[in-house]
Each structure stands twice: as C-alpha cells, then as structure tokens.
C-alpha cells in the first residue's frame, strides 16, 4: 500500500487538535465546550482526504474500506466464541488496534513523525475503539438476557447484513438497541434510530450502571401494577440520582424514561411469564 498524500479538511484547526489530544490523554479533563470541539474534530477529520495507491478517498471511506472491511467480521466471529467476552474481548480489541497501527506503519509514505499521518491513525483507532467496545457490550448483554431467562430474538452479529439491521433485538414485540455509551442520546442521532428501547450504561462517578432507556411506546408496554407510572420528571443531571428508579427526561421535545437494567429485566420477565400462563390456559 502506498500512501500518496493526506489533505486535511481546511476546517480542521488548532482547537480541534487540542481537543483530540485532550481526549486521547484523559477524557475526564474535557470541559463541555471541549466535547463540542472533539465531536466537530472527528466529523471534520472524516471529511479529510487520503490518497492511497492513487485513489482519493475521505478518511471515513478509508476506514470503511480498509479497516472495517478487513477487521470487523473476523473480530466479531471470534468475539462470540470467547468465554469471557469482556476481558478476552478487550484483549482482542487491543490486538486489532495494534494491527491497524502496523498496517499503516507498513504503508509506503506513512510516518508517525508526520502530523497528518498521526491524525489518520488516530481517526482509525477512535472508530475501531467505538466499534469494538460497542459489540463487546452487545455480546455481554445478549448473554445476560439469556441467562436471566428473558425471551428475545437477537440479530446475528456475525452476519454482516444482520449487523446493519436497524435494531439489535426483538422482545415483547418491541425493537431494542444495545448501546455501549449514551452518546446516541442526542436529538440528531435519536432521529435516525427507530428502536423502542435502548440498553446502555450511564456513567456515574466511577461506575457504569446498566440502564434501560425507553421511548413512550416501550414504557406503555412495561408499566405494570403496582409500579404503574411511578416515574419522576428529571433533568439529565438528576437521572443519575434517581437510578435505578424510573425517571422521565427530555431530549429536545422527546420524552424518554430511564430505568435500572435489573428493574427493567424484572418487568419484562413478569410480562413474559404472565403471557406464557395466559397462553397455557
């Protein structure tokens, strides 16, 4: 592979570089405006151009064609066979990240002394981490749901076409997505998702408790006596204080309910068992 040139998007500037370095070093040091800058930096880098073997493509296309196409399916095929998806999955994720580094290092014209090349590597590793962490969490949740006795239909993430399905699982007739972080909870991203509920993690202090986030359609199915509609209105900051209890918060004008994952599972189980009894009669 010959890396002929990199043309950073002209919108990429000093503050972007600063936010990226701050994030890579320690994301906890980022202030609110730094997160805005980081998000913009990743977007702008995605629009930057790399010319490889004479072919001009944007960073995001380069990632899709060279990194995702080469590493994603083998990683997932291995991930689903691991006994400890979390620990072994993280090691597999890190091994692929090292491999991505070696792949770029091996390209003629690539040098870690060059800032543009560094940014291409950072872009690829940023998205690889997001991809791998997301699927590790998904496998962990699928296994936990099965171990808890919930009935659900999950997409087969080793099949590429199923991986790109618009939802990850079906349960009680509701479509669900498993999200490794709450980054999807923005009005823009939610507008692209049509799932009824999401399983995610809500960072509080030094912990990441698992949380179910429900649209009103899903809450209507899950609200059961005696806990019918026991929800408190909350700001985003207050959700963490109420968890694992249920709270309603707004993203733009969209009402969402946050509920502890274990509490959500109990409600689902109750409904599924009640449904089984009804069908047995």
């Amino acid at each position: 592979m010959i890396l002929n040139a990199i043309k950073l998007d002209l919108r990429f500037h000093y503050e972007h570089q600063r936010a990226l370095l701050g994030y890579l070093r320690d994301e906890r040091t980022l202030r609110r405006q730094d997160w805005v800058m980081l998000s913009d930096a990743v977007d702008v880098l995605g629009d930057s151009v790399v010319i490889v073997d004479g072919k001009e493509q944007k960073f995001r296309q380069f990632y899709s064609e060279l990194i995702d196409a080469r590493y994603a399916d083998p990683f997932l095929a291995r991930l689903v066979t691991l006994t400890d998806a979390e620990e072994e999955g993280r090691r597999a994720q890190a091994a692929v990240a090292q491999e991505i580094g070696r792949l770029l290092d091996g390209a003629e014209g690539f040098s870690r002394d060059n800032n543009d090349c560094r940014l291409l590597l950072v872009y690829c590793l940023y998205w690889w981490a997001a991809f791998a962490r997301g699927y590790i969490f998904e496998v962990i949740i699928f296994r936990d749901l099965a171990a808890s006795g919930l009935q659900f239909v999950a997409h087969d993430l080793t099949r590429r076409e199923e991986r790109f399905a618009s939802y990850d699982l079906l349960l009680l007739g509701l479509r669900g997505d498993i999200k490794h972080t709450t980054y999807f909870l923005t009005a823009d991203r939610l507008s692209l998702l049509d799932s009824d509920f999401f399983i995610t993690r809500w960072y509080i202090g030094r912990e990441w408790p698992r949380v179910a986030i429900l649209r009103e359609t899903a809450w209507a199915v899950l609200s059961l006596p005696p806990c019918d509609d026991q929800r408190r209105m909350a700001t985003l900051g207050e959700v963490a204080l109420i968890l694992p209890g249920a709270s309603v918060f707004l993203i733009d004008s969209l009402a969402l309910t946050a509920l502890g994952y274990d509490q959500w599972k109990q409600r689902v189980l109750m409904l599924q068992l009640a449904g089984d009894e009804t069908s047995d009669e």
Partner: protein
Amino acid sequence: MSEETIQDLTTEDFNQLIDDFVAREDDRIEPSIFLTAMAELERARAVREVELTGRVVNGEIIFDTPAPLLVEPNTLYVGDTKVTLKLRLVA
C-alpha cells in the same frame, strides 16, 4: 486541558499516547455533560438542505456527481452515518 496538540508530541510520546489509548477502557464522562454539549452543538448547527439527483441503472441508484454529500451507488454518507438505500419496486 493543556495547550499542546498532537503535532507537538515527540514520536516516542505519540506512540505512548496511542498505546495508552488502545489499552484504555471506556470513556468516563457523565451523560449530562456530554449530552448538554451535544445539544448546544445541534442547536448551533445551521439547518442545511441539499438535493441529490441521479438515475437508476440496472436497479442501482447512481447519484450525479459532484454531489453535496459523499455518495456511492446506493449509498450516501451523512456525518458519521453511512446510508445504504434498499428500495423495492412497487407496481
């Protein structure tokens, strides 16, 4: 956050930064901070309307280029989202 950028790092420091990032667990950020930041970003973002034109050739949608978004046959990219079009013909 320091005033340094990735460019300012020695190659050795950059390699160490990458090694540490690869080994790092997950992003430690409280949703209220991140999501408030993103809400600000979304509000500040101007509404942009673009028009994609193209033709259907052998069942594939071929967009006219240059296009205002990155496009491929049956595919377009909007921000970090790859949109793959799978349309059905209905008589």
